Every structure is written in C-alpha cells, then in structure tokens.
C-alpha cells in the first residue's frame, strides 16, 4: 500500500477526511456574499466532489471518477481550497476594480 509519491503517506479513512474538509469549506463559503462568483464556482466544485465521495466507497474507483490524481493529492487540494476560502474572506476580491491603470500602461507596442 503506497501512494507512489515521495513524502506522501497513505491516508487511512480518506472518505472521512474529505467529508470533514468539504463541510468546513462549505461552512466558510457561507460567509461570502451570495452573488460572488468565487462562492458560486467553488460551491459547485465542492458539491460535485462531495457527492462523488459520498456515493463511491471504493478508493480506486473514487480516484478514477474524480480524475485528479491520488486520493492523498485530493485531500491536499481540499486543504488548500479551505485555506484559500479563509483568505478570500479577508481579501474580498468580488468587489469592483481597486484602481484603473494609466491609459498607456498596458499598450503594446508602445
């Protein structure tokens, strides 16, 4: 039993871990305004993956269905998404543009 990747240990009970992580992500997303695009798309991704995790109990078949590398990598990705959601709460990137650039800034050729 091995992941095949250096430094990545095999996760025992990945379904439980993914369930906890996805519920936490959805909880953090509740704090974002409903019309933000980030909340919409992330909820869509998380719900899709959550449904797949709930339906499929075999680890190999779940990996094939998710089509996103090893289960341990999926767990790492979910942890990243959780930390990103928390940081998004502070940065609030759904607001309109902070400042317009000067008109010649992005003109190429000059």
């Amino acid at each position: 039993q091995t992941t095949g990747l250096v430094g990545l240990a095999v996760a025992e009970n990945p379904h439980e871990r993914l369930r906890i992580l996805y519920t936490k992500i959805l909880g953090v997303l509740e704090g974002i305004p409903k019309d933000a695009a980030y909340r919409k798309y992330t909820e869509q991704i998380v719900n899709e993956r959550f449904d797949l995790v709930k339906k499929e109990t075999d680890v190999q078949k779940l990996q094939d269905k998710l089509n996103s590398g090893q289960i341990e990598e999926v767990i790492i990705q979910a942890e990243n998404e959780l930390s990103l959601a928390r940081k998004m709460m502070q940065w609030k990137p759904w607001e309109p543009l902070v400042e317009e650039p000067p008109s010649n800034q992005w003109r190429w050729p000059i």
Partner: protein
Amino acid sequence: TVRPKNEVEQKQLCAFGEYVAEILPKYIQQVQVTCFNELELLIHPDGIIPVLTFLRDHTNAQFKSLADLTAVDVPSRQYRFEIVYNLLSLRFNSRIRVKTYTDELTPVDSAVPVHKAANWYEREVWDMFGVFFANHPDLRRILTDYGFEGHPFRKDFPLSGYVEV
C-alpha cells in the same frame, strides 16, 4: 512555414481567462490571450498576493509552480517597471502569465510567502532594476559586484557602465 493555429486551445484559454476575471474583479484590470496561445492576466499591484494564492490553491487552477519572475523597463510610462510572473500548472499542463506595474520608488509585495522560488528571482529584480519588495526575507544584491552602484538592466544605464575597468 507558419505554426498552425490551435483554435481549441485558444478557446479554452479564453474561457479560463474569463473565469478568473469573473472571480477576481477587484484586482484584474485586463485579460489577454496572445496569438501563440499564452494567457496573460494584468493585475493592480495590490493584488499580487491574492491573485497568486488563488492561482496556486484553487481546484480549477492549480498553478503550483512559479517558473519565472522578471521585470520589464519601459521608461516612457508613468509606472515604468512591469513585473512578470510565469506560472505552470502540473495538474492541467498549462501556463499563465501575471503582470503588474510599479514605478521606481513604490515597493511591491513579495511573492515569497506564496512561492518559495520567488526568493532569488526577486533579489535579481531588485539588483538589476531597483524594484523594492516589501516583506522579502533577505533582499540584497545577487549578480552585481559588491560595491556596485546603479541598476544595470534599466534602459537609462549605459552599455559600458559608469566605471572604467
């Protein structure tokens, strides 16, 4: 011969560019796709860390690898330096370019908290252009000589330098 146009990849990159622009309207000023199928995001300098963390952590955009961090000097502009980040996604095999701007005196947020690889690249940009990076752990000269004065890659620095050798 001319390189054949890959319409499918162009459409995919356009779609992804619109996706990212919809999620981060606060910082993204413009999105463009070159004719060689390269996606570029043009950012306000306040948004460097949010945009880079988003591109690194989001499930649809796992750009875990910082391939390059450079600067371009265009002296005729008000904000003369253009900082360019090249990111690579290993999961989706795709590249993206993030560009910001600054002038000579305004500091820019360091990308080191997001990508450890940015350390020496930012030292090089500081040494060669004079762009100061705030919150960099160790910003000092990396390529010029120890007592060197000036920033060589700027367009107003002469080719043979100021000091006779």
